[in-house]
Structures are given as C-alpha cells and as structure tokens.
C-alpha cells in the first residue's frame, strides 16, 4: 500500500531511477503510481475477467551484455514475466512480447534471442501468443530491448496480500542468492574477474505450484528478488506489511563464488539481483509443509526458512548473525557498484 507518498521532484531522469532501488521507488511512487491511481505495487496486478481472476504483468528488459553465462536477454524476458505471474499465485497462461531493435543489429543476434525466448517459453509451459516489433535508429537503442507482458490464471486457493503478513510468519527463500547479478557484472568484462558461476534464470512456477498445493491457506506473500535484490524485496514487504523482518544471516545461501565476488568488490549479496529465486511468507503452521514442497521440486533443494516477521514501529529489515550482532539492511540507491574503499 502506498502511504506517505512523496512527490517526485528531481528535474531529470537518471540511471538510478531505473535500477530498482530507492530512486526507482521514488519515481514510481512519486510520479507514476499517483497518476495511475495505483494502490498496490506488486509483481503483477489482478484483473477480474468475467469469472476468472487474472494476474497481469509486464517488464522491459535492457540487459547488457545480451548474452551471459546461464542465459540471455530473451530467456530473462520470458522467465522474468512468468515469475512475476507466479509470484501472484497464478499459473502462467500466455505471453506477448515486443522488441525494440537498434538499426544495424545483426539478424543473428536477434534470432538467437528469439530462439532463447521460445525455448524458455516451452520450458515454462507458456505460449508466446503475440507481439510487436519496432526498429529505431542507430544509437537510439542498445541493440535489443525486449518487453514481455504475461497473464496467468490465479489459483482460487491463494490469497496473497502484504496486509495478511503478521508476527510469527516465516520467510522462505528458494535457493542461493546473487548468482544473476554477479554473473552479469562479470560478463561485462570491466572488472576482469572470472568464476564458475552462471545466472540463476529459470521459471519458478513449478515450485510455486507445489507450494500452493501444500500450503495455500498459510501462503501470504511472494516476491522474486530481481533488481535491487533481497534487500529491496524485503524492505518493500516490511513497509507494506508494517512489520519488521528479522533474518538469520546463516540461513541465507550464497555460493562461495558469489560471496568471494562480494567480498572483493565490497558488495552485499542482499543487494544483488536474482532471476530464478523467490521469497514466500508463510504462516508458522504451514512453514514446514511449504518448505518441504519447494525442496521436493528439482532445483529447490536449497530452499530454507531464513527469517521471521516481527511486530515493530520501525518497518525495517534486520539481519542477525550467529553471535547476536544485528544490522539493518537497506535498499540501495542505484545499481550496486564495486568499491575499493
């Protein structure tokens, strides 16, 4: 829910306004949401169509480089939208996609992404049913931008709302974090770092489907922590649900390579983007069933309960270490930048 709206006063739009962190939220909540009368800002919106409750979402993808270990912009464009639908408790039904292509882009590059889209769609069991193609002049795009919109049929057993989240609820995370963001950072080649690591891009509906079967009554909120990472997703939850989230640092899985990269670069894995993970808030009674359900699906073995919802006036996210130290985890301002000091 949007409370304490702040008008957007910055005179120009800068990169940080698109990076998924605080500046993005200022832009969206200070400018877009008020005009569009949006009350909730979720991964997908719900639309009632006759008897059917539809989840409806869209995202634009502007990744650089277009291809990276484990995936590519085309694959992301499908999985990202499929996942936003899944996060709404809906079974993905169909995708429409639009392409904005920079004139001069090699057909080979385009074809590879179209192929990647189709393959990802098949894997996610969703049809690409339509779309649009625009070509713009050289230097008026960056090779290829893909926008996908998706619709899904909301599972009638599900009732997701930050408002239902309350003290004692458990936070479940589907697997290790930071793989995608670090892969992209490395793939840009600017830092000359390498590691055996790849993007985690995948469709999460199979996990969500089982989760719903096992724990629908206790399932209260879901989010895929993409741009802005876990830090942003959980801060949004804290704010929208008016609670504090307390995480157990040790429960959060981070691959050694991702951890190594973060230590080298002075980054926090909690700020790094993911493309195949999700967070679910489940009531205490259903938490174990939920966890078991996710873990049963191949690829979900590392799911874990990573924290708990607390009552508090301060709607923040805290991370607690094993020796009892806690730190607040804030959203980032823009994209995470490597630092040397």
């Amino acid at each position, binding site marked *: 829910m949007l409370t304490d709206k702040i008008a957007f006063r910055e005179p120009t739009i800068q990169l940080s306004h698109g990076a998924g962190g605080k500046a993005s939220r200022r832009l969206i909540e200070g400018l877009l949401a008020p005009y569009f009368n949006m009350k909730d800002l979720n991964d997908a919106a719900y639309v009632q169509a006759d008897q059917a409750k539809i989840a409806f979402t869209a995202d634009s993808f502007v990744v650089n480089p277009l291809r990276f270990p484990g995936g590519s912009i085309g694959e992301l464009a499908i999985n990202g939208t499929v996942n936003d639908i899944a996060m709404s408790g809906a079974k993905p039904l169909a995708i429409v996609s639009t392409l904005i292509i920079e004139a001069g882009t090699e057909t080979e590059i385009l074809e590879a992404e179209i192929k990647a889209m189709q393959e990802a769609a098949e894997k996610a069991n969703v049809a690409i049913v339509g779309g649009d193609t625009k070509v713009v002049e050289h230097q008026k795009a960056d090779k290829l931008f893909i926008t996908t919109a998706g619709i899904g049929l909301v599972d009638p057993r599900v009732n997701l709302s930050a408002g239902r989240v309350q003290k004692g609820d458990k936070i479940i995370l589907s697997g290790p974090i930071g793989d995608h963001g670090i892969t992209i950072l490395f793939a840009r080649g600017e*830092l*000359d*770092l*390498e*590691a*055996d*690591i790849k993007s985690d891009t995948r469709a999460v509906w199979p996990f969500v489907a089982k989760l719903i079967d096992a724990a629908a009554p206790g399932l209260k909120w879901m989010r895929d922590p993409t741009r802005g990472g876990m830090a942003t997703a959980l801060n949004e939850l804290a704010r929208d649900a008016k609670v504090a989230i307390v995480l157990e640092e040790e429960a959060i899985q981070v*691959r*050694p*390579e991702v*951890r*190594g*990269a973060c*230590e*080298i670069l*002075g980054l926090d894995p909690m700020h790094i983007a993911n493309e195949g993970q999700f967070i679910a808030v489940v009531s205490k009674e259903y938490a174990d069933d939920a966890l078991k359900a996710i873990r049963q699906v191949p690829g979900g073995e590392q799911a874990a309960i990573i924290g708990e919802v607390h009552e508090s006036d301060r709607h923040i996210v805290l991370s607690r270490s094993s020796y009892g130290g806690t730190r607040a985890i804030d959203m980032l301002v823009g994209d995470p930048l490597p*630092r*040397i*000091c």
Partner: protein
Amino acid sequence: MCLAIPGKIVELLDDRNQYAMIDVSGVRRKVNISLIQHEGVKVNDWVLIHVGFAMNKISEKQALEQLQLLQEIGEDKEAMTEIKGYQFD
C-alpha cells in the same frame, strides 16, 4: 577505507614475478605482485589484495597466534581443541 581481501596465489604468470593469478573463494583475477616480490612469492601463498595489487603476504602464524590469544582470554583451556578447527590447511 581501503577494501582488501585475502586471496591465494594459484599461478605465477610471468618470469619477472610481476603478475600472479589469485583465487578468492572461486573468483580468479590476475594481480600485480611486484610490491611483494622482495618477500619471495610462490604458489599457495596467501596475499592481501587491493585494487588488483598484492599488498603483502598474510602470515598464517600471526593469524593463528591471534586466535589462540583470544581463545585463552577467558583462561578457558578446554576450548583449545575447538580453535584447532580453525587451523589453516
């Protein structure tokens, strides 16, 4: 200030001992080692890395001594075995 990180030398990259490949938890980078040449550098050495340079070798001995000292703080001899768990291998 000055983020620096321990890394292990996995390969010496040139004769003049100017560059080495280091590994930090599976992340590899070419690093300039000319600042530590005078100490003698070899594969499996641990070094402290900052902005692509090895600043110093890391002393395993000192590290162990520190941990032992802290372990002994409470005179709790019993926990001495535990610290072995953090011994370097």
